[in-house]
Protein backbone atom coordinates (compact mmCIF):
# COMPACT_ATOMS: atom_id res chain seq x y z
CA UNK A 1 0.00 0.00 0.00
CA UNK A 2 2.68 2.45 1.04
CA UNK A 3 4.97 1.41 -1.77
CA UNK A 4 2.06 1.89 -4.11
CA UNK A 5 1.62 5.44 -2.83
CA UNK A 6 5.29 6.21 -3.43
CA UNK A 7 5.04 4.68 -6.88
CA UNK A 8 2.11 6.96 -7.64
CA UNK A 9 4.24 9.88 -6.46
CA UNK A 10 7.10 8.95 -8.78
CA UNK A 11 4.65 8.57 -11.65
CA UNK A 12 3.16 11.98 -10.89
CA UNK A 13 6.65 13.48 -10.87
CA UNK A 14 7.63 11.93 -14.22
CA UNK A 15 4.37 12.81 -15.95
CA UNK A 16 4.16 16.22 -14.32
CA UNK A 17 7.71 17.33 -15.01
CA UNK A 18 7.49 15.83 -18.50
CA UNK A 19 4.33 17.77 -19.25
CA UNK A 20 5.68 21.05 -17.86
CA UNK A 21 8.91 20.74 -19.85
CA UNK A 22 7.16 19.65 -23.04
CA UNK A 23 4.59 22.42 -22.80
CA UNK A 24 7.15 25.15 -22.22
CA UNK A 25 9.42 23.84 -24.99
CA UNK A 26 6.42 23.97 -27.31
CA UNK A 27 5.77 27.50 -26.09
CA UNK A 28 9.38 28.45 -26.86
CA UNK A 29 9.01 27.10 -30.40
CA UNK A 30 5.65 28.80 -30.90
CA UNK A 31 6.94 32.11 -29.53
CA UNK A 32 10.06 32.02 -31.69
CA UNK A 33 8.03 31.30 -34.81
CA UNK A 34 5.53 34.02 -33.90
CA UNK A 35 8.27 36.58 -33.26
CA UNK A 36 10.19 35.88 -36.45
CA UNK A 37 6.93 36.04 -38.41
CA UNK A 38 5.70 39.26 -36.81
CA UNK A 39 9.03 41.07 -36.96
CA UNK A 40 8.57 41.39 -40.70
CA UNK A 41 5.40 43.43 -40.18
CA UNK A 42 6.08 45.56 -37.16
CA UNK A 43 9.09 47.61 -36.22
CA UNK A 44 9.93 47.57 -32.51
CA UNK A 45 8.73 50.72 -30.73
CA UNK A 46 11.80 52.06 -28.89
CA UNK A 47 13.87 52.06 -32.08
CA UNK A 48 11.51 54.69 -33.51
CA UNK A 49 12.39 57.24 -30.82
CA UNK A 50 15.92 58.24 -31.88
CA UNK A 51 14.61 58.77 -35.44
CA UNK A 52 12.17 61.41 -34.15
CA UNK A 53 14.92 63.12 -32.23
CA UNK A 54 17.04 63.54 -35.36
CA UNK A 55 14.09 65.09 -37.19
CA UNK A 56 13.97 67.88 -34.65
CA UNK A 57 17.66 68.66 -34.98
CA UNK A 58 17.01 70.89 -38.03
CA UNK A 59 15.10 73.37 -35.88
CA UNK A 60 17.76 73.45 -33.19
CA UNK A 61 18.49 77.21 -33.40
CA UNK A 62 14.83 78.19 -33.15
CA UNK A 63 14.33 75.79 -30.29
CA UNK A 64 17.34 77.03 -28.32
CA UNK A 65 16.29 80.64 -28.89
CA UNK A 66 12.77 79.94 -27.66
CA UNK A 67 13.96 78.02 -24.60
CA UNK A 68 16.52 80.63 -23.56
CA UNK A 69 13.92 83.39 -23.97
CA UNK A 70 11.56 81.45 -21.74
CA UNK A 71 14.25 80.87 -19.12
CA UNK A 72 15.16 84.56 -19.23
CA UNK A 73 11.55 85.59 -18.65
CA UNK A 74 11.16 83.08 -15.85
CA UNK A 75 14.26 84.33 -14.06
CA UNK A 76 13.16 87.94 -14.26
CA UNK A 77 9.73 87.07 -12.93
CA UNK A 78 11.07 85.05 -10.00
CA UNK A 79 13.87 87.33 -8.97
CA UNK A 80 12.08 88.70 -5.94
Amino acid at each position, binding site marked *: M*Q*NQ*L*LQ*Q*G*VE*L*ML*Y*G*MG*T*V*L*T*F*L*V*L*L*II*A*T*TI*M*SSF*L*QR*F*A*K*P*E*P*AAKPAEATKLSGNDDHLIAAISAAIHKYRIRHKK
Partner: protein
Amino acid sequence: MDKLLSLWYDSGIYQMASGQFIMMLVCLLLLYLAIKRGFEPLLLVPIGFGGLLANIPAAGLAFSAVENAINSGSPDVLQALAQSLQLASWESGKDIYYAYESASASLHVLAEQTAKDLGFLNGMLYNFYNISIASGAAPLIIFMGVGSMTDFGPLLANPKTLLLGAAAQFGIFATVLGALGLTALGLMDFSLADAAAIGIIGGADGPTAIYVASLLAPDLLGAIAVAAYSYMALVPLIQPPIMRALTTEKERQIVMVQLRPISKLEKVCFPLVLLILVALFLPSAAPLLGMFCLGNLMRECGVVDRLSDTTQNALINITTIFLGLSVGSKLSADKFLDLKTLGILLLGIVAFAIGTACGVLMAKLMNKVSKTPINPLIGSAGVSAVPMAARVSNRVGLNANPQNFLLMHAMGPNVAGVIGSAVAAGVMISLVGG
Protein backbone atom coordinates in the same frame (compact mmCIF):
# COMPACT_ATOMS: atom_id res chain seq x y z
CA MET B 1 -28.95 36.54 39.30
CA ASP B 2 -30.11 34.02 36.69
CA LYS B 3 -29.83 36.64 33.99
CA LEU B 4 -26.32 37.48 35.09
CA LEU B 5 -25.38 33.81 34.94
CA SER B 6 -26.81 33.34 31.45
CA LEU B 7 -24.93 36.41 30.30
CA TRP B 8 -21.75 34.87 31.72
CA TYR B 9 -22.46 31.56 29.93
CA ASP B 10 -22.89 33.52 26.69
CA SER B 11 -19.64 35.42 27.09
CA GLY B 12 -16.57 34.67 25.03
CA ILE B 13 -14.39 33.99 28.05
CA TYR B 14 -16.69 31.24 29.33
CA GLN B 15 -16.95 29.50 25.97
CA MET B 16 -13.35 29.88 24.87
CA ALA B 17 -11.72 26.55 24.12
CA SER B 18 -7.96 26.24 24.52
CA GLY B 19 -7.58 25.50 20.80
CA GLN B 20 -9.36 28.71 19.87
CA PHE B 21 -7.17 30.67 22.24
CA ILE B 22 -3.98 29.26 20.67
CA MET B 23 -5.35 29.97 17.19
CA MET B 24 -6.03 33.57 18.19
CA LEU B 25 -2.39 33.86 19.26
CA VAL B 26 -1.31 32.36 15.92
CA CYS B 27 -3.47 34.91 14.08
CA LEU B 28 -2.02 37.75 16.15
CA LEU B 29 1.43 36.46 15.18
CA LEU B 30 0.40 36.60 11.50
CA LEU B 31 -0.84 40.16 11.98
CA TYR B 32 2.43 41.07 13.69
CA LEU B 33 4.47 39.58 10.84
CA ALA B 34 2.34 41.42 8.29
CA ILE B 35 2.22 44.83 9.96
CA LYS B 36 5.56 45.07 11.72
CA ARG B 37 7.73 42.91 9.48
CA GLY B 38 6.02 43.62 6.16
CA PHE B 39 5.38 39.94 5.27
CA GLU B 40 3.00 40.08 2.27
CA PRO B 41 0.78 42.49 4.25
CA LEU B 42 -1.85 42.70 1.50
CA LEU B 43 -2.76 39.10 2.19
CA LEU B 44 -1.64 38.33 5.70
CA VAL B 45 -3.64 41.20 7.24
CA PRO B 46 -7.00 39.90 5.94
CA ILE B 47 -5.94 36.28 6.55
CA GLY B 48 -4.87 36.98 10.14
CA PHE B 49 -7.96 39.02 10.88
CA GLY B 50 -10.22 36.43 9.25
CA GLY B 51 -8.59 33.85 11.51
CA LEU B 52 -9.34 35.98 14.57
CA LEU B 53 -12.99 36.32 13.51
CA ALA B 54 -13.28 32.61 12.79
CA ASN B 55 -12.06 31.72 16.28
CA ILE B 56 -14.40 33.96 18.24
CA PRO B 57 -16.19 31.46 20.44
CA ALA B 58 -19.93 30.95 19.88
CA ALA B 59 -20.08 33.53 17.09
CA GLY B 60 -19.80 30.73 14.54
CA LEU B 61 -18.68 33.01 11.72
CA ALA B 62 -16.85 30.22 9.89
CA PHE B 63 -19.56 27.56 10.31
CA SER B 64 -22.52 26.53 8.18
CA ALA B 65 -26.08 26.80 9.46
CA VAL B 66 -26.16 23.12 10.43
CA GLU B 67 -22.88 23.35 12.36
CA ASN B 68 -24.15 26.45 14.12
CA ALA B 69 -27.36 24.64 15.03
CA ILE B 70 -25.38 21.71 16.44
CA ASN B 71 -23.05 24.03 18.33
CA SER B 72 -26.00 25.78 19.93
CA GLY B 73 -26.46 22.56 21.90
CA SER B 74 -30.16 23.04 22.60
CA PRO B 75 -31.83 19.60 22.90
CA ASP B 76 -34.88 20.54 20.81
CA VAL B 77 -32.72 21.69 17.93
CA LEU B 78 -30.54 18.58 18.10
CA GLN B 79 -33.62 16.36 18.17
CA ALA B 80 -35.06 18.06 15.09
CA LEU B 81 -31.78 17.71 13.22
CA ALA B 82 -31.42 14.05 14.21
CA GLN B 83 -34.92 13.44 12.93
CA SER B 84 -34.23 15.09 9.61
CA LEU B 85 -31.10 12.94 9.27
CA GLN B 86 -33.12 9.82 10.20
CA LEU B 87 -30.79 9.15 13.09
CA ALA B 88 -32.38 6.69 15.53
CA SER B 89 -30.05 7.13 18.46
CA TRP B 90 -27.45 9.74 19.26
CA GLU B 91 -25.58 10.90 22.34
CA SER B 92 -24.06 14.27 21.56
CA GLY B 93 -23.90 16.91 18.83
CA LYS B 94 -20.80 15.22 17.43
CA ASP B 95 -22.78 12.12 16.43
CA ILE B 96 -25.22 14.29 14.54
CA TYR B 97 -22.37 16.12 12.85
CA TYR B 98 -20.78 12.89 11.61
CA ALA B 99 -24.18 11.68 10.41
CA TYR B 100 -24.61 15.00 8.57
CA GLU B 101 -21.17 14.68 6.94
CA SER B 102 -21.87 11.17 5.67
CA ALA B 103 -25.56 11.71 4.86
CA SER B 104 -26.92 11.22 1.37
CA ALA B 105 -27.52 14.27 -0.77
CA SER B 106 -31.26 14.50 -0.07
CA LEU B 107 -30.84 14.14 3.72
CA HIS B 108 -28.03 16.69 3.56
CA VAL B 109 -30.32 19.25 1.98
CA LEU B 110 -33.10 18.36 4.41
CA ALA B 111 -30.84 18.93 7.43
CA GLU B 112 -29.70 22.26 6.00
CA GLN B 113 -33.27 23.38 5.50
CA THR B 114 -34.22 22.21 9.00
CA ALA B 115 -31.42 24.28 10.51
CA LYS B 116 -32.48 27.30 8.48
CA ASP B 117 -36.13 26.87 9.48
CA LEU B 118 -35.03 26.83 13.11
CA GLY B 119 -33.49 30.24 12.55
CA PHE B 120 -29.81 29.35 12.15
CA LEU B 121 -27.80 31.04 9.43
CA ASN B 122 -24.53 30.35 7.67
CA GLY B 123 -21.68 32.28 9.23
CA MET B 124 -20.44 35.33 7.33
CA LEU B 125 -16.98 33.87 6.67
CA TYR B 126 -18.56 30.56 5.63
CA ASN B 127 -20.50 32.43 2.94
CA PHE B 128 -17.40 34.31 1.83
CA TYR B 129 -15.51 31.03 1.56
CA ASN B 130 -18.20 29.39 -0.53
CA ILE B 131 -18.52 32.31 -2.91
CA SER B 132 -14.87 33.16 -3.35
CA ILE B 133 -12.81 30.00 -2.86
CA ALA B 134 -15.06 26.93 -2.98
CA SER B 135 -16.42 28.21 -6.28
CA GLY B 136 -12.86 28.78 -7.54
CA ALA B 137 -13.68 32.37 -8.46
CA ALA B 138 -11.32 34.46 -6.33
CA PRO B 139 -7.99 32.81 -7.24
CA LEU B 140 -8.95 33.00 -10.93
CA ILE B 141 -9.91 36.69 -10.74
CA ILE B 142 -6.61 37.41 -8.99
CA PHE B 143 -4.83 35.49 -11.73
CA MET B 144 -6.49 37.74 -14.29
CA GLY B 145 -5.19 40.73 -12.35
CA VAL B 146 -1.70 39.23 -12.26
CA GLY B 147 -1.95 38.74 -16.02
CA SER B 148 -2.84 42.38 -16.55
CA MET B 149 0.16 43.41 -14.44
CA THR B 150 2.61 41.16 -16.28
CA ASP B 151 4.87 42.45 -19.02
CA PHE B 152 5.95 39.60 -21.26
CA GLY B 153 8.50 41.78 -23.05
CA PRO B 154 11.63 40.29 -21.40
CA LEU B 155 10.30 36.79 -21.97
CA LEU B 156 9.57 37.47 -25.66
CA ALA B 157 13.04 38.94 -26.10
CA ASN B 158 14.62 35.77 -24.77
CA PRO B 159 12.15 32.86 -25.02
CA LYS B 160 14.82 30.38 -23.90
CA THR B 161 14.29 31.58 -20.34
CA LEU B 162 11.00 29.66 -20.36
CA LEU B 163 13.17 26.60 -19.69
CA LEU B 164 14.24 28.12 -16.38
CA GLY B 165 10.60 28.53 -15.41
CA ALA B 166 10.10 24.86 -16.23
CA ALA B 167 13.16 23.64 -14.29
CA ALA B 168 12.17 25.52 -11.14
CA GLN B 169 8.87 23.59 -11.06
CA PHE B 170 10.85 20.48 -10.14
CA GLY B 171 10.56 21.68 -6.55
CA ILE B 172 6.80 21.07 -6.72
CA PHE B 173 7.11 17.46 -7.77
CA ALA B 174 10.06 16.66 -5.51
CA THR B 175 7.96 17.91 -2.59
CA VAL B 176 5.04 15.71 -3.58
CA LEU B 177 7.45 12.80 -3.37
CA GLY B 178 8.75 14.11 -0.04
CA ALA B 179 5.24 14.32 1.41
CA LEU B 180 4.47 10.78 0.26
CA GLY B 181 7.83 9.64 1.66
CA LEU B 182 6.87 11.01 5.08
CA THR B 183 3.61 9.09 4.81
CA ALA B 184 5.43 5.91 3.83
CA LEU B 185 7.71 6.31 6.85
CA GLY B 186 4.61 6.62 9.01
CA LEU B 187 5.49 10.14 10.21
CA MET B 188 2.55 11.90 8.56
CA ASP B 189 -0.66 10.89 6.91
CA PHE B 190 -0.97 12.59 3.54
CA SER B 191 -3.00 11.23 0.63
CA LEU B 192 -1.81 11.71 -2.94
CA ALA B 193 -4.19 14.68 -3.32
CA ASP B 194 -2.87 16.25 -0.10
CA ALA B 195 0.72 15.79 -1.27
CA ALA B 196 -0.05 17.38 -4.64
CA ALA B 197 -1.64 20.41 -2.97
CA ILE B 198 1.34 20.80 -0.61
CA GLY B 199 3.81 20.53 -3.49
CA ILE B 200 2.22 23.50 -5.25
CA ILE B 201 3.59 25.72 -2.45
CA GLY B 202 6.90 25.26 -4.30
CA GLY B 203 5.33 27.09 -7.24
CA ALA B 204 5.61 30.23 -5.07
CA ASP B 205 2.35 31.47 -6.47
CA GLY B 206 -0.39 32.27 -3.95
CA PRO B 207 -3.52 32.13 -6.14
CA THR B 208 -2.35 28.92 -7.84
CA ALA B 209 -1.67 27.27 -4.48
CA ILE B 210 -5.10 28.27 -3.15
CA TYR B 211 -6.85 27.16 -6.34
CA VAL B 212 -5.22 23.72 -6.29
CA ALA B 213 -5.71 23.28 -2.53
CA SER B 214 -9.41 24.19 -2.77
CA LEU B 215 -9.87 21.48 -5.40
CA LEU B 216 -7.62 18.74 -4.01
CA ALA B 217 -7.32 19.25 -0.24
CA PRO B 218 -9.79 21.83 1.17
CA ASP B 219 -9.00 20.69 4.73
CA LEU B 220 -5.38 21.77 4.40
CA LEU B 221 -6.15 25.05 2.62
CA GLY B 222 -5.50 27.30 5.61
CA ALA B 223 -2.08 25.86 6.33
CA ILE B 224 -1.10 25.74 2.65
CA ALA B 225 -2.10 29.36 2.00
CA VAL B 226 -0.31 30.61 5.11
CA ALA B 227 2.82 28.62 4.21
CA ALA B 228 2.75 29.83 0.58
CA TYR B 229 2.42 33.51 1.47
CA SER B 230 4.90 33.40 4.36
CA TYR B 231 7.55 31.78 2.23
CA MET B 232 6.92 34.22 -0.61
CA ALA B 233 7.72 36.95 1.89
CA LEU B 234 10.84 35.04 2.91
CA VAL B 235 12.16 34.69 -0.66
CA PRO B 236 14.92 37.30 -0.04
CA LEU B 237 16.17 35.22 2.91
CA ILE B 238 15.72 31.70 1.51
CA GLN B 239 17.13 32.14 -1.98
CA PRO B 240 20.49 33.98 -1.75
CA PRO B 241 22.38 31.31 0.27
CA ILE B 242 21.28 28.62 -2.19
CA MET B 243 22.22 30.82 -5.16
CA ARG B 244 25.66 31.58 -3.77
CA ALA B 245 26.32 27.94 -2.87
CA LEU B 246 25.62 26.75 -6.41
CA THR B 247 27.48 29.42 -8.40
CA THR B 248 31.08 30.61 -8.55
CA GLU B 249 32.05 34.25 -8.13
CA LYS B 250 32.97 34.36 -11.83
CA GLU B 251 29.57 33.05 -12.92
CA ARG B 252 27.78 35.63 -10.80
CA GLN B 253 29.69 38.38 -12.62
CA ILE B 254 28.55 37.32 -16.09
CA VAL B 255 27.09 40.29 -17.97
CA MET B 256 24.22 39.41 -20.27
CA VAL B 257 23.61 40.92 -23.70
CA GLN B 258 20.95 43.60 -23.85
CA LEU B 259 17.45 42.45 -24.70
CA ARG B 260 16.05 43.31 -28.10
CA PRO B 261 13.08 45.69 -28.16
CA ILE B 262 9.68 44.03 -28.57
CA SER B 263 6.96 45.35 -30.85
CA LYS B 264 3.43 45.87 -29.59
CA LEU B 265 2.13 43.39 -32.14
CA GLU B 266 4.20 40.59 -30.60
CA LYS B 267 2.95 41.43 -27.13
CA VAL B 268 -0.67 41.37 -28.29
CA CYS B 269 -0.26 38.04 -30.06
CA PHE B 270 1.61 36.25 -27.26
CA PRO B 271 -1.38 35.67 -24.90
CA LEU B 272 -3.36 34.34 -27.85
CA VAL B 273 -0.56 31.94 -28.83
CA LEU B 274 -0.32 30.79 -25.21
CA LEU B 275 -4.07 30.25 -25.00
CA ILE B 276 -4.12 28.25 -28.24
CA LEU B 277 -1.33 26.00 -26.89
CA VAL B 278 -3.25 25.51 -23.63
CA ALA B 279 -6.42 24.66 -25.52
CA LEU B 280 -4.56 22.17 -27.69
CA PHE B 281 -2.42 20.40 -25.14
CA LEU B 282 -3.49 21.06 -21.56
CA PRO B 283 -7.18 21.99 -21.17
CA SER B 284 -6.98 21.32 -17.42
CA ALA B 285 -4.80 24.43 -17.06
CA ALA B 286 -7.33 26.47 -19.03
CA PRO B 287 -9.08 28.13 -16.04
CA LEU B 288 -5.82 29.53 -14.62
CA LEU B 289 -4.00 30.34 -17.85
CA GLY B 290 -7.17 31.43 -19.62
CA MET B 291 -7.83 34.16 -17.06
CA PHE B 292 -4.13 35.03 -17.08
CA CYS B 293 -4.14 35.44 -20.86
CA LEU B 294 -7.32 37.53 -20.76
CA GLY B 295 -5.76 39.91 -18.25
CA ASN B 296 -2.60 40.19 -20.31
CA LEU B 297 -4.47 40.73 -23.57
CA MET B 298 -6.49 43.55 -21.98
CA ARG B 299 -3.22 45.15 -20.89
CA GLU B 300 -1.43 44.89 -24.20
CA CYS B 301 -4.18 45.45 -26.75
CA GLY B 302 -4.44 49.10 -25.68
CA VAL B 303 -8.13 49.61 -26.49
CA VAL B 304 -9.60 48.61 -23.12
CA ASP B 305 -7.45 50.60 -20.74
CA ARG B 306 -10.40 51.03 -18.38
CA LEU B 307 -10.91 47.30 -18.00
CA SER B 308 -7.20 46.68 -17.63
CA ASP B 309 -6.98 49.40 -14.99
CA THR B 310 -9.89 47.87 -13.05
CA THR B 311 -8.48 44.34 -13.14
CA GLN B 312 -5.07 45.39 -11.90
CA ASN B 313 -6.34 47.75 -9.20
CA ALA B 314 -9.93 47.80 -7.96
CA LEU B 315 -10.96 44.27 -8.83
CA ILE B 316 -7.81 42.55 -7.59
CA ASN B 317 -7.97 44.54 -4.34
CA ILE B 318 -11.61 43.68 -3.65
CA THR B 319 -10.97 40.04 -4.43
CA THR B 320 -7.88 40.00 -2.21
CA ILE B 321 -9.92 41.15 0.79
CA PHE B 322 -12.47 38.36 0.39
CA LEU B 323 -9.82 35.78 -0.50
CA GLY B 324 -7.86 36.67 2.64
CA LEU B 325 -10.90 36.53 4.92
CA SER B 326 -11.96 33.21 3.40
CA VAL B 327 -8.52 31.69 3.90
CA GLY B 328 -8.63 33.02 7.46
CA SER B 329 -11.91 31.19 8.03
CA LYS B 330 -10.02 27.95 7.51
CA LEU B 331 -7.67 28.73 10.39
CA SER B 332 -9.80 26.89 12.91
CA ALA B 333 -8.14 25.01 15.74
CA ASP B 334 -9.30 21.53 14.78
CA LYS B 335 -7.79 21.87 11.30
CA PHE B 336 -4.72 24.00 11.91
CA LEU B 337 -3.39 22.72 15.26
CA ASP B 338 -2.31 19.46 13.76
CA LEU B 339 0.97 17.70 13.08
CA LYS B 340 0.12 18.05 9.39
CA THR B 341 0.54 21.83 9.55
CA LEU B 342 4.08 21.40 10.82
CA GLY B 343 4.71 18.96 7.99
CA ILE B 344 3.28 21.43 5.45
CA LEU B 345 5.46 24.28 6.72
CA LEU B 346 8.53 22.04 6.56
CA LEU B 347 7.76 20.62 3.12
CA GLY B 348 6.90 24.08 1.81
CA ILE B 349 10.34 25.45 2.51
CA VAL B 350 11.95 22.33 1.02
CA ALA B 351 9.85 22.85 -2.11
CA PHE B 352 11.10 26.44 -2.37
CA ALA B 353 14.72 25.46 -1.86
CA ILE B 354 14.65 22.65 -4.43
CA GLY B 355 12.88 24.86 -6.98
CA THR B 356 15.48 27.59 -6.55
CA ALA B 357 18.35 25.12 -6.83
CA CYS B 358 16.95 23.50 -9.99
CA GLY B 359 16.44 26.88 -11.63
CA VAL B 360 20.04 27.90 -10.92
CA LEU B 361 21.43 24.55 -12.12
CA MET B 362 19.38 24.76 -15.32
CA ALA B 363 20.71 28.26 -15.95
CA LYS B 364 24.28 26.98 -15.45
CA LEU B 365 23.64 24.25 -17.98
CA MET B 366 22.15 26.73 -20.46
CA ASN B 367 25.16 29.01 -19.99
CA LYS B 368 27.44 26.12 -21.03
CA VAL B 369 25.39 25.26 -24.11
CA SER B 370 24.13 28.62 -25.30
CA LYS B 371 26.06 31.00 -27.57
CA THR B 372 25.09 34.12 -25.62
CA PRO B 373 26.17 34.16 -21.97
CA ILE B 374 23.52 33.48 -19.31
CA ASN B 375 24.07 34.48 -15.72
CA PRO B 376 23.03 31.49 -13.56
CA LEU B 377 21.58 33.87 -10.97
CA ILE B 378 18.51 34.53 -13.13
CA GLY B 379 17.59 30.83 -12.82
CA SER B 380 16.36 31.27 -9.27
CA ALA B 381 13.69 33.70 -10.53
CA GLY B 382 12.05 30.73 -12.24
CA VAL B 383 10.10 29.93 -9.08
CA SER B 384 7.69 32.82 -9.92
CA ALA B 385 7.00 34.94 -6.78
CA VAL B 386 6.82 37.96 -9.11
CA PRO B 387 8.63 40.34 -8.81
CA MET B 388 10.39 39.47 -5.56
CA ALA B 389 12.46 36.61 -6.97
CA ALA B 390 13.68 38.74 -9.90
CA ARG B 391 14.72 41.49 -7.49
CA VAL B 392 16.67 38.94 -5.45
CA SER B 393 18.53 37.82 -8.60
CA ASN B 394 19.29 41.44 -9.38
CA ARG B 395 20.59 42.14 -5.89
CA VAL B 396 22.82 39.08 -5.66
CA GLY B 397 24.17 39.99 -9.11
CA LEU B 398 24.91 43.55 -8.03
CA ASN B 399 26.83 42.21 -5.02
CA ALA B 400 29.15 40.34 -7.35
CA ASN B 401 29.44 43.10 -9.94
CA PRO B 402 28.07 46.57 -9.11
CA GLN B 403 27.66 47.40 -12.84
CA ASN B 404 25.59 44.32 -13.63
CA PHE B 405 21.83 44.89 -13.67
CA LEU B 406 20.04 41.57 -14.06
CA LEU B 407 16.50 42.74 -13.22
CA MET B 408 15.08 42.75 -16.76
CA HIS B 409 16.84 39.49 -17.60
CA ALA B 410 15.41 37.89 -14.48
CA MET B 411 11.86 39.06 -15.26
CA GLY B 412 11.81 36.59 -18.19
CA PRO B 413 12.23 33.44 -16.08
CA ASN B 414 10.08 35.09 -13.41
CA VAL B 415 6.95 35.31 -15.59
CA ALA B 416 7.90 31.95 -17.13
CA GLY B 417 7.65 30.60 -13.59
CA VAL B 418 4.06 31.84 -13.36
CA ILE B 419 3.18 29.99 -16.55
CA GLY B 420 5.16 26.95 -15.38
CA SER B 421 3.41 26.69 -12.03
CA ALA B 422 0.01 27.14 -13.65
CA VAL B 423 0.87 24.30 -16.05
CA ALA B 424 2.07 22.17 -13.13
CA ALA B 425 -1.20 22.95 -11.32
CA GLY B 426 -3.15 21.84 -14.39
CA VAL B 427 -1.22 18.57 -14.53
CA MET B 428 -1.86 17.93 -10.82
CA ILE B 429 -5.57 18.61 -11.18
CA SER B 430 -5.97 16.35 -14.17
CA LEU B 431 -3.80 13.50 -12.82
CA VAL B 432 -4.83 13.53 -9.16
CA GLY B 433 -8.23 15.15 -9.08
CA GLY B 434 -9.67 13.48 -12.18
